[in-house]
């Protein structure tokens, strides 16, 4: 099972197991990772599941699509490696993925 590490803004790190097919947001919720609110439940309509993908992993997670990019306008402190975690599908390829949660989800 692919392992995912969530690093909180304060540095606390959580390594958890994901399942291929789930989204990174769902993995976070299942494991009660703080800092991911996901108000809309993964419909790409709230931007409260914002994460920063660890630079090295960007090629593997791919870029965000237009709808996600639009929704990121509603997130705070958006950076080049910003993604909405409900739009990243977990695959075996992503084993070892590291994402950081922002200071605030707005």
């Amino acid at each position, binding site marked *: 099972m692919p392992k995912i590490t969530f690093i909180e803004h304060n540095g606390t790190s959580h390594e958890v197991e994901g399942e291929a097919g789930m989204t990174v947001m769902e993995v976070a919720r299942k494991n009660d990772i703080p800092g991911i609110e996901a*108000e*809309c439940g993964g*419909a790409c*309509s*709230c*931007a*409260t599941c914002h994460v920063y993908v660890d630079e090295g992993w960007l090629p593997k997670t791919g870029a965000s699509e237009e709808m996600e*990019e*639009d929704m*990121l*306008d*509603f997130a*705070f*402190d*958006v950076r080049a490696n910003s993604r909405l975690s409900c739009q990243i599908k977990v695959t075996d390829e992503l084993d070892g993925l590291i994402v950081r949660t922002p*200071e*605030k989800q*707005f």
Partner: protein
Amino acid sequence: MSNSPIETDVVIIGAGPCGLFAVFELGLLDIRCHLIDILDRPGGQCAELYPEKPIYDIPAYPIISGQELTDALMEQIKPFDPQFHFNQRVDEIEKLEDGRFHLKTDDNQEFICKNVVIAAGGGSFTPKRPPLPGIEEYENGSVHYSVRRMSDFEGKDLLIVGGGDSALDWTLNLTPIANSVTLVHRRDKFRAATDSVNKMLALREEGKINFHLGQMTEIHGENGEMTGVTIKGEEEVLVKCNRLLPFFGLTMKLGPVANWGLNLHENLISVDTEKFETSAEGIFAIGDINSYPGKLKLILSGFHEAALMAQKVNAYINPDKKVVFQYTTSSSSLQKKLGVK
């Protein structure tokens, strides 16, 4: 401004799908409704959060979008002529000595009604507040999350932040009356009506507005008076301004519902499952806002709750009227109410 109170049978708080369907069930029983919503249009979450997304579990509709469902409900309740009051939040509910209820909105509109139906869903839609340190200090005058009166911005130096329709519409509308307007967005792409984008670009060309690519990082000012905001993009700039209009969409906050003295369970209103009445006699709660054993936050559950609630409201409002159970298919009196010819 205070308008004279509106008197009616029932006030429904929230014009989401459940509030809308409540109009239908009450209407069949000849009970008239006014609906109040903080949004500027009907549909609640369906219209605000997912108008284009498909819903697959509305009985008899294999697929219907949030907006289509809203439009269909509006069509269905048309015969009952519901009165809508948008852009207003209900802040207070109070029981009067004669047993009726007095409601007041944040726009000082008052209502007097026989029963109240709370269909407030996940709570009132509230503008997202940028998590900038100390922003609260400026919310009494300098920071505005919506425009109530254009005159508040006359001759001011405005900073408008965002890239959607609200940000652009207000950029276009306020530029003629403001002293200066600066628009800030994190990228040079706007999710707004093409016409507005073109008009805004024209203002930019003509030098009538300033534009910065970037995001806010710090507010400056003293004693609640804003003097500027730091914008971080490729480089850092300090934009001088005394009015800030941030448009980052809406989030649902329980809001005033918590202050109405009703029994709550984990921030939801406890109701019984026979009448969906709250701990306060005469006040009902249906849809996502209520809680009872086995509750499912689904639209179809809210529709069922609306039907049972209406029966009890009818018993309150028309205590002497004999209730005859009827089908819309076969009852000529129900069909007359629906305008079936």
